[in-house]
């Protein structure tokens, strides 16, 4: 049996799926259409809505601990009604405070900005934009969501156990996380965290393998790699990062589970706890940090690359101009992906890492500024003299670039091992990664949602609510995180429960209150978006044309509400790249249009 014959067999198989699915999709049962769906578009929505639920929970946690940080002297009796013994007398229990910051980080980094962002948009856009009926393996794709769902259930369960969820920080460093006696959150909550993360890693792996195989193997005729929209390149590199870095976290998580439950000594050595000498010997907590950050650093690019891809695409469409420097964009995505694997120890400059070794990590870390800057300049030059339409998606894309510049610049400070001695574990770090990864990642997600919502649900989101959402979030993000740089430079440490006990940080009481106040407003603005999202799903303005944004990419050549299989007839053939905007006097030329005889080159 030759490869040729097998491949031919699969192509016909996929075509069959398209035809039969299109003819019969009205007869699908509720379960097969909405629950155990194998349609990439439905799976994308499942990822999205699960991610949104997590975003509300994780965001609400930040409101709770900001109440403590902003108003350390006050009590909030309603907290006790709501949280019981975690907030006796209306004041957050210190142990629970640590649980809140830990779960806020875990939820936002993994469940919202990984599964919610790349899970949603990779699933939704890859088959539509490369011209495929569905993912390479729709079944594994469905399985990938259900592993995410199981991970979610386990993590949610950990919020309700008696001793509380994990509380050692989202980086779960041992020995704190390895010893149940060390803290309340290191008991069953930590085991549930690790199990949940193992399930999450399986989800990321199944998803990532599918995204890679689909982009490489299922591109439609004429869709060469360099004709793909930048979203596809971004999702492709994101998937590669995930497939190669998550397994290392899996190793670390397994060894940590063994240390916790089987009496091994992988990360433990010479520990006295409550006056008792532990028998563990020879392990290394630093080893865990290496394993963790080998995932942990690529993870921030798993978050930001999809946002970059989405912003590039939305910006080009709404500037009515080709993206500036397409090949440079692809090249810098590749450079970022490669460098992402070589910089992890910059999180560990103060762990006793050899300073000579540290200098290499400084060099490699600062090198990432080069491809990042190339991308920023290309976005700015794409906007330059463009015919800009300020749609909500476009505003969030422009906001993304602004936020990415602001947060990226502080990364250059932190990447220096000498400066890091002063800055590590302060609010400067908090400000840096919240802006460059957290807010920028969310902005990419919002840009994508506002832009592709019409394709997802056949209706538009409400524009007025969208503009309020954008401006409150944009201004609020800067008002929250800008002052934190100042606090961090002054040495204010992260993860502290109450700064009013420190003479040197008392002067920040007013600033902390201000930050907390703004973060409550920004959280409320996100609820406005959630309302808009669900309201518009049923009552939003209907999409009446196939290609409402006048975009070139293939997803707009499908029916307004595409069935399983995406195109009713044959999959269209592609004749040009995705960025022929404002060419030869025409506003846009879809990828499906053959190149004319007298068309100019670009």
């Amino acid at each position, binding site marked *: 049996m030759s490869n040729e014959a097998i*491949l031919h067999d699969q192509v016909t198989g996929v075509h069959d799926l398209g035809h039969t699915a299109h003819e019969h999709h009205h007869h699908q049962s509720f379960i097969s259409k909405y629950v155990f769906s194998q349609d990439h578009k439905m799976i994308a929505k499942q990822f999205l809505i699960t991610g949104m639920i997590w975003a509300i929970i994780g965001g609400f946690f930040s409101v709770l601990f900001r109440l403590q940080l902003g108003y350390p002297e006050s009590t909030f009796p309603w907290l006790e009604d709501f949280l019981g013994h975690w907030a006796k007398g209306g004041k957050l229990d210190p142990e629970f405070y640590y649980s809140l910051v830990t779960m806020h980080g875990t939820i936002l980094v993994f469940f919202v900005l990984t599964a919610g962002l790349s899970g949603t948009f990779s699933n939704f856009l890859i088959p539509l934009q490369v011209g495929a009926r569905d993912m390479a*393996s729709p079944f594994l794709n469905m399985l990938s969501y259900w592993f995410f769902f199981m991970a979610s259930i386990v993590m949610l369960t950990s919020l309700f156990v008696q001793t509380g969820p994990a509380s050692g920080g989202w980086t779960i460093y041992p020995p704190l996380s390895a010893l149940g006696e060390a803290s309340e959150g290191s008991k069953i909550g930590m085991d549930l965290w690790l199990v949940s993360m193992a399930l999450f890693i399986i989800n990321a792996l199944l998803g990532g*393998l599918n995204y890679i195989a689909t982009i490489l193997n299922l591109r439609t005729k*004429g869709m060469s790699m*360099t004709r793909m929209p930048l979203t596809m390149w971004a999702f492709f590199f994101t998937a590669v990062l995930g*497939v190669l870095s998550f397994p*290392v976290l*899996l190793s670390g998580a397994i060894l940590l589970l063994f240390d916790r439950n089987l009496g091994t000594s992988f990360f433990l050595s010479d520990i006295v706890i409550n006056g008792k000498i532990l028998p563990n010997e020879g*392990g290394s907590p630093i080893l865990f940090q290496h394993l963790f950050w080998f995932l942990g650093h690529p993870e921030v690019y798993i978050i930001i690359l999809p946002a970059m891809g989405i912003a590039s695409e939305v910006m080009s469409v709404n500037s009515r101009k080709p993206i500036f420097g397409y090949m440079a964009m692809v090249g810098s995505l590749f450079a970022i992906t490669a460098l992402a694997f070589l910089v992890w120890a910059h999180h560990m400059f103060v762990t006793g890492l050899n300073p000579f070794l540290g200098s290499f990590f400084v060099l490699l870390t600062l090198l990432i500024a080069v491809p990042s800057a190339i991308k920023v300049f290309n976005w700015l030059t794409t906007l330059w003299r463009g015919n800009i339409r300020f749609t909500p998606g476009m505003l969030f894309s422009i906001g993304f670039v602004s936020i990415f510049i602001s947060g990226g610049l502080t990364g250059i400070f932190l990447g220096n091992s000498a400066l890091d001695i002063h800055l590590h574990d302060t609010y400067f770090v908090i400000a840096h990664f919240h802006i460059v990864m957290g807010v920028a990642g969310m902005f990419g997600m919002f840009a994508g949602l506002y832009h592709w919502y019409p394709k997802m649900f056949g209706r538009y989101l409400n524009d007025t609510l969208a503009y309020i959402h954008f401006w409150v979030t944009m201004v609020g993000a800067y008002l929250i995180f800008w002052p934190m740089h100042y606090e961090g430079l002054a040495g204010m440490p992260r993860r502290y429960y109450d700064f009013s006990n420190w003479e040197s940080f008392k002067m920040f009481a007013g600033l902390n209150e201000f930050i907390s106040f703004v973060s409550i407003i920004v959280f409320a603005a996100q609820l406005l978006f959630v309302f808009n999202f669900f309201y518009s799903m049923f009552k939003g303005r209907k999409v009446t044309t196939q290609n409402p944004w006048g975009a070139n990419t293939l997803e707009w050549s499908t029916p307004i509400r595409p069935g399983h299989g995406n195109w009713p007839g044959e999959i269209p053939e592609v004749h040009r790249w995705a960025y022929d905007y404002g060419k030869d006097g025409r506003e846009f030329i879809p990828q499906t249009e053959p190149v004319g005889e007298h068309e100019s080159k670009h």
Partner: protein
Amino acid sequence: METAAAIQPTTKLWNGGKSPFNVSYGKLMMWYFLMSDAFTFGAFLISYGTIRFSQNVWADPNHVFNAFPLTGHTNLPLAFVSLMTFILILSSVTMVLAVHEGHNMNRKGVEKWLVFTILGGLAFLGCQAWEWTHLITGDHAVLVNGTLQHWGTTVSHNPWGPEVNYNGAEVASPGPIAFGGYFFGITGFHGFHVFSGVVINGIMLVKTRLGHFDQRGHYEMIEKAGLYWHFVDLVWVFVFLCFYLI
């Protein structure tokens, strides 16, 4: 630059409409999965190396792994693990033959060689079970704080430290605890992979018997299972090297 590409023949590998590597998506996914799994094992083995070389002493494999079933206390260094390795490599050979018969669309041949591969996998797991049991239930005199104790090899006890003189006899002192953790952790994780491979091959056997691949017109699933099986063998070569030879 894009318009220029349009006039080139559409048979080019990367132009879409076909697989650039000329493989099905399933094989492509399997290759990427194996790469990912290699990173998991790589992380384990590098962790092991880091900890092992941070210690002043380590257990001598010729000393630890010198037992063979039914031979009592005869000193046969690495004999049993060599047999295990031989069995596993032999099962890779039978897997190759199964894939080969699949190419010839010979259902009976595929069934026969799959059965041998499964038996090889089970034999390996049986050997591993014996070896683990032997180590854990072993009984070695160890001088601990001036008194003689009898230890097996576990994740918290290592009776393979340097020998010391005690009342005129040479007895062992406690060795680095990390030895048991890494040995059982990594060989166990590999054993789990062998077990998964046996289950996968079992499913393949059932599907072959039910004629699924004849209906489909090809035996590519056997090839994918084969890729996994060979990978598990390859990992064993590294595990063997790191725990038994070095």
